[in-house]
């Protein structure tokens, strides 16, 4: 098995799918000759030609519309939004067009599109680059939303997303792109969309999280173990729409305590949804309310205080203690 960074795994997934299916197209701003601003598409235009991998004019709504139109003609577009903060410029094409195609046409047309965007904090990007906007995406009916936390999952989930006949938004956390390597099998394999992963087993409390917060939560779990001898279970959702409720419930029934950690602002997000589902289906298994660790309800913090604004292992441990001491 090869050791890859997450970005290498992402490139590998796209290479495999471009080679496997001539209907797969890859486009966006700077994805061609330049190989993407993060090099996620590096070498793919050279390998597959300008008809398969191409640069677009600088206009995000155009990119979304192009994806919808190409989907109508039988292609399977991978459309890159250069940074998540630019998604508003194409949100109509995602929320009102691509995701509604099957519904509006009674199944006559579909949008087999994979939207990709770098997102996520802790890397000191300028404004409107890192914003955790996944809550907006998860509240969009008809859209699947995937957030891998490691190279293995990234490759397998991206291949699943490209093969999916419905639109999938694939969020790539910028901090995870090159921060570590992981084992990634050669060739094709898939990780199913909609299945969570128990990344660390534990007995006393469950942390439900996704993306870069998986790693922050694992650090918090270590701290809690060291400080209080608590054995924390950590679940990586991997897909935040739809959410794998079964895996969450099985864990909560075992540990009877849970917290949800998300990078995004507090209100009405993925954490709120997870808590609602636990309330609906496992309330009698709980020894304490399910709490959440999130960023505050402000615009994404400027670089200087970004690291304080985002959830830290210490804040997670504090919340673990609140739940344990309830």
């Amino acid at each position, binding site marked *: 098995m090869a050791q890859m960074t997450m970005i290498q795994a992402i490139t590998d997934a796209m290479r495999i799918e471009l080679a496997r299916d001539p209907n797969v197209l890859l486009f966006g701003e700077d994805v061609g000759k330049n190989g993407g601003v993060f090099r996620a598409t590096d070498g793919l235009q050279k390998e597959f030609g300008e008809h398969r991998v191409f640069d677009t*004019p600088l206009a995000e709504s155009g990119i979304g*519309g192009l994806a919808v139109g*190409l989907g109508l003609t039988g292609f399977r577009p991978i459309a890159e939004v250069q940074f998540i903060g630019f998604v508003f410029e194409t949100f109509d094409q995602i929320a*009102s067009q691509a995701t509604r195609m099957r519904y509006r046409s009674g199944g*006559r*047309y579909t949008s087999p599109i994979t939207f990709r965007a770098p997102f996520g904090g802790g890397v000191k990007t300028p404004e409107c680059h890192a914003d955790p906007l996944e809550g907006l995406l998860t509240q969009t009916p008809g859209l699947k939303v995937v957030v891998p936390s490691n190279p293995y999952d990234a490759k397998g989930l991206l291949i699943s997303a490209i093969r999916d006949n*419905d639109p999938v938004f694939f969020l790539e956390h910028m901090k995870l792109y090159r921060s570590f390597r992981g084992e990634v099998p050669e060739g094709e394999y898939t990780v199913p969309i909609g299945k969570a992963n128990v990344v660390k087993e534990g007995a006393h409390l469950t942390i439900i999280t996704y993306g870069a917060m998986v790693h922050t939560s694992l650090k918090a779990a270590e701290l809690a173990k060291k400080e209080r001898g608590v054995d924390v279970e950590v679940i990586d959702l991997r897909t935040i729409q739809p959410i794998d409720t079964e895996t969450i419930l099985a864990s909560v029934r075992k540990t009877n305590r849970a917290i949800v950690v998300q990078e995004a602002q507090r209100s009405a997000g993925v954490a709120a949804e997870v808590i609602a589902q636990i309330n609906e289906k496992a309330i009698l298994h709980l020894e304490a309310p399910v709490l959440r660790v999130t960023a505050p309800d402000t615009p994404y913090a400027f670089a200087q205080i970004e690291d304080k604004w985002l959830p830290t292992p210490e804040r997670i441990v504090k919340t673990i203690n609140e739940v344990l001491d309830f």
Partner: protein
Amino acid sequence: MPVQTKGPNNQKQHQTGYIYTNVDETFQPLQVLSTDGKVIDEANMPALSDDQLRELMRRMVFTRIWDQRAIALNRQGRLGFYAPVAGQEASMIGSEFALNKEDFILPGYRDIPQLVWHGMPLYQAFLYSRGHQHGGQLPQDVNVLMPQIIIGAQIVEAAGVALGYKLRNEKRVAITYTGDGGSSQGDFYEGLNFAGAYQAPAIFVVQNNRFAISVPLEKQTKAETIAQKAVAAGIPGVQVDGMDVLAVYKAVKDAADRGRNGEGATLIECLTYRFGPHTLAGDDPTRYRTKEQESEWEQKDPLTRFRKYLESKKLWSEEDETQVIEEAKQAVAEAIKQADETPAMTVSGLIDSMFETLPESLKEQKAWFEGV
């Protein structure tokens, strides 16, 4: 034909020498028939057989009657959302008539006639109006999208469909429609620019019917024409008398030919007028239009003009007209009956149409809805 191109000959320089203020001051809309039905531009007379000319008239009369019936049915509560089309028949029907069956139409909310004449069954148009999902479940060989409600969204999608045909080396074009208001949208510029940059076979038709609900063209844009907005995208721009079905046909046919020949996209501005309100949902045109303006445009009625032309060639008679009117009334009655007989939509059916495979959460929601 008046295809606008960029270049020094078409540009007028301001006296200071570096400020361009005009795109082409000699620019004239394409017009084949005068308002009294005489051929005034023989060179641009499209090559249509007598049968095709009669068919154009048949479709325009049919559509006028269907529009009148649809308005009446809406007032009786038997239809839902409906945007009247009278006045725009030449622009709608002339443009669709210039297409091939395999060409793809991405309509705006008013563009139901193009869909129907491209193959959408009339009863499904009525189901669409009633908010029934089957209204969009069209036969496989009918290459159209549902009417677009978001103004301009279809324009960027049309660039995508057109690029798809180009990548597949298919001799097909994508045509999309919007109004004068739609030409103010960012998506309008993005769509034209994308199609221009990719030399994709798209045809962008702006039906300039003078009003975006109540806002007149003069408040919509400072540009002299909408056609000239093509210059910014590097594609040909054409302005057509949109009350002249032969001129519209000619402009769209030429644009489609250029698209099929690999010459890329075209913007076509049709100068037209909607005789009725914006939609039947409470719009009152007397608040923003004058009687003088209405009667001025009624003089240009596309049906009257083309009827005069056909009558002068002995291709149309009162009997023909009466026959089409009856045919239209009967077709509408049958379509409404078929729409009435179509089983109602269900919430379960709606949930089932969200994804290829239903996720657990939606299965649960479906079961819950079915249980109450």
